[in-house]
């Protein structure tokens, strides 16, 4: 009995799937899915090397400080990093006094302990970076986690920042509707998922920041530095994770060898193993 029911249920599902497959196949052949502009012109992030890549990845303090400068002078106008606290900056190599000075430049709206009212005061190392009020249309995302929140991570951020270009003639020829109107407020960037991004090119010219270590602030250098900085904001414990990881894996490999030897020893009297 159970086998008859089983055959019937099996026939039910397989016939439904056959019908679905047949319908899909007919549609696919009669109306092949047209490739969209995003499908054809979207590009994967460029190859970009960062010190934090790979199992030996670590942070380059000088680069993180440069990236932080780019963030403060360029990105911070629209984007917050609200998961990061000023005290965290000590990990970039700033000393306590420097961190206090950086924090004090920020204005934090907090409850005044004496009056109980919300008041502006200078930032303290314990404060997190404040929210950024963006006046224009749209919602610039918080950047704290951006390198973990996008496929491709730091390479994506770097590619996006350096990827602004004119719409290719080929694209407009194949997809006339995709031509951007001047008043759309959008900019063509093949690394962005739908090719058109609202963000104006943030690194439009060289020397938007002056690096204290004398590095020349080219567009490419700034993009790379800020991408490296955003790896740190997303994963401040990356170095420690890698260090502990090596100890863990090496110890467990050692345990595996010991364990395997004792296993062979225990089974030595059982022929066939």
């Amino acid at each position: 009995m159970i086998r008859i029911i089983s055959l019937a249920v099996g026939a039910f599902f397989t016939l439904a799937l056959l019908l679905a497959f047949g319908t899909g196949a007919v549609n696919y052949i009669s109306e092949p899915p047209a490739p969209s502009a995003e499908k054809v012109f979207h590009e994967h992030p460029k190859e970009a090397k960062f010190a934090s890549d790979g199992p030996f990845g670590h942070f380059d303090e000088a680069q993180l400080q440069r990236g932080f400068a780019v963030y403060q002078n360029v990105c911070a106008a629209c984007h917050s990093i609200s998961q990061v606290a000023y005290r965290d900056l000590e990990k970039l190599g700033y000393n306590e006094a420097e961190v206090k000075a950086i924090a004090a430049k920020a204005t934090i709206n907090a409850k005044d302990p004496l009056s109980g009212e919300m008041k502006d005061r200078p930032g303290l190392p314990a404060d997190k970076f404040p929210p950024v009020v963006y006046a224009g249309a749209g919602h610039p995302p918080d950047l704290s986690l951006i390198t973990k929140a996008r496929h491709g991570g730091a390479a994506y951020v770097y590619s996006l920042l350096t990827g602004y270009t004119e719409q290719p003639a080929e694209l407009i020829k194949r997809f006339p509707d995709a031509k951007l109107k001047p008043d759309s407020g959008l900019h063509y960037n093949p690394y962005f998922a739908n090719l058109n991004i609202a963000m104006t090119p943030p690194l439009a010219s060289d020397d938007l920041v002056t690096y204290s270590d004398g590095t020349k602030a080219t567009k490419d250098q700034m993009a790379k530095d800020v991408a490296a900085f955003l790896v740190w904001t997303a994963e401040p414990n990356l170095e420690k994770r890698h260090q502990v990881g090596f100890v863990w894996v090496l110890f467990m490999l050692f345990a595996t060898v010991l364990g395997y030897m004792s296993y062979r020893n225990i089974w030595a009297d059982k022929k066939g193993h």
Partner: protein
Amino acid sequence: MSFPWANEYKPSHPLMVWMDEKLPLPRLVYNAVGGGYEVPRNLNYFWNFGFLAGLCLVMQIVTGIVLAMHYGGDTRVAFNSTEHIMRDVNWGWLMRYAHANGASAFFVVIYLHIFRGFFYSSYKAPREMIWLIGVVIFLLMMATAFMGYVLPWGQMSYWGAQVITGLFSAIPLVGDAFREWLLGGFAPDNATLNRFFSLHFLLPFVILGVVILHVWALHIPGSSNPTGVEVKSESDTVPFYPYYIGKDGWTVALFMVLFGIAVFFMPNALGHPDNYVPANPMQTPAHIVPEWYFWPFYAILRAFTVDFLIVPAKLMGVLAMFSAILVWFFLPWLDRSPVRSGSYRPLYRKFFWFGLVPAMAVLFYCGGAPAEEPFVMLSQLASLYYFAHFLIIVPIVSSIERPDPLPFSITEAVLGADDKASLGGQG
């Protein structure tokens, strides 16, 4: 409950003698996973995954309890408290990455454990109850994992909850009311997050209880083995301790090497980037995908694209997705071949390796791919095979197949027929 030649627990220390009279817990442990449990001597490495699954469960409970000490189950703080764990809690990043990747490791191990069961027909009499309880554990694990993924309240948490609870609205008549009852509202919100947190904390302990039943049921007939031939004599078995503790032990260390590589060097490889974006009910992600361990069943759900007879496509998909696991419950009665092991079933073995395994691989791949061609057509073919395999092929193969000759005993399978005579005295 055990073989007559099994070692008996004999406490020597007076304290242990006293303990054995009052509460024979050491005796229970001895008989369950110690020298008192006799196990076939020929188990291969596919029999290691049960032990590893138990380890994963314990690991998930330990890391989960620590995480719950620092997590806030409220939509206003859930995302930030998760980041607080990652940044400010001492070793919080390790607890969270171990917990998130621990769930993946648990499913890797469980899938291998289940497929061991398919190949060697571990579900057959007298072990049906072990199998049935095992399928219940798998269902509980899926529920637990799904609710756990909602807790960080990222984009994929929110939209995953939206889609999965939305499935229940396909139930005729009461679907929408049922969904609202599940969510505690019209969309996932604070009520949903709170109950998911509560249940995500409760269910692992339910799983632990059911695991105890699973192991208890296992100890009635004893473990199966790669030949599928039942234990006949003392020479067929070895005590669990030290033999299988030794064998499981070194694979635990190996597992920890691989697990460590995932946790410390690629902790986000199996996660979706969108879950590092806070939940936003006003913005639907481009592709909503569940965690990788749900992909085969998600692919089956999406394979049903047309209405069938009087059943709407969506309901068909939901029915099929649940049925895909429910059919496992009936396997012991669908597969009537007297031979257990796939090693001695030439026809069944072909369908296993060239049918079920590739179909499952395709379903895994398509479940994670966007819902567009050719992935939809591929998942339709793979789902078709999946249902045909369990509901049509297995019952038919088990009646028409001519199995290969079985070895006389486990000992003969291990040592070869020539040595049988020399072992006569040991029986």
